[in-house]
């Protein structure tokens, strides 16, 4: 794909703005307990930051930031974090995804709060990786032009 590398305005502005979008995405994931937000929204913001860099600075620079071979493994890792949180509850004597049995030394409601946090991190990771992977796949070159 043709890059806009010769345009100074878009290059400068988006390289300034993109790290802040990343930070804001992480804030949305972690602060989802207390304000509108959570894994899905935060993951979409993270993917938006990475895709912005890909659009403006070209695919080569974007590959340095997030290699397109990482997409599917990171998405699987996100689902595994979710599934592992549920399975950990099973190993410590509860039912699947019952955060009450997680081995965190806290009171009962705080255990559930932390369990929600783990699950949200898994969701955010999976959504970010899958959105970037879909973008990369859709923009792939034709095999034999």
């Amino acid at each position, binding site marked *: 794909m043709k890059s806009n590398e010769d345009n100074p305005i878009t290059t400068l502005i988006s390289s300034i703005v993109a790290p802040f979008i990343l930070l804001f995405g992480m804030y949305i994931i972690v602060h989802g307990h207390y304000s509108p937000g959570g894994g*899905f929204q935060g993951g979409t913001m993270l993917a938006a930051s990475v895709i912005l860099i890909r659009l403006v600075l070209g695919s080569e620079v974007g590959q340095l930031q997030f290699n397109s071979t990482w997409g599917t493994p990171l998405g699987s890792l996100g689902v595994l974090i979710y599934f592992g949180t549920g399975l950990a509850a099973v190993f410590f004597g509860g039912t699947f995804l019952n955060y009450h049995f997680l081995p965190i030394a806290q009171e009962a409601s705080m255990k559930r709060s932390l369990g929600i946090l783990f699950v949200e991190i898994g969701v955010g990771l999976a959504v970010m990786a899958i959105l970037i992977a*879909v973008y990369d796949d*859709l923009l792939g070159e034709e095999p034999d032009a």
Partner: protein
Amino acid sequence: MLDFFAGHYAYWFILVLLVIGLYGMIFKKNLVKKIIGMSIFQVAIILFFVASASKWNATVPILEHGIQGEALVQYINPLPHTLMLTAIVVGVAINGVAFALIIRIYRRYRTLDENTLLRNMKDDTE
């Protein structure tokens, strides 16, 4: 009567949006326009659920310590918001898969028009 209209006009606009999406899916011949119609249809369904969750004089479903008394009427219904949150992300995934299929079809048959596509497919099998 006025109360009835004030309580229902939002549903009617949403249903018009739904029929517009259905029109795009059925009558348009270009595959990309069909996907645009499908997105409009999805948005109509999502808006319908969110509209049905509202309560008069209620606030967003985030607990606030300042609000006392009967908590049930102070917060809008959180369940449709949760369901639609997942529906939005599934909609994005559906769009991705649909565009991937369209790219495959274009690489094979070199067209996205429905009539030409059907003719090319018939030529291919004969």
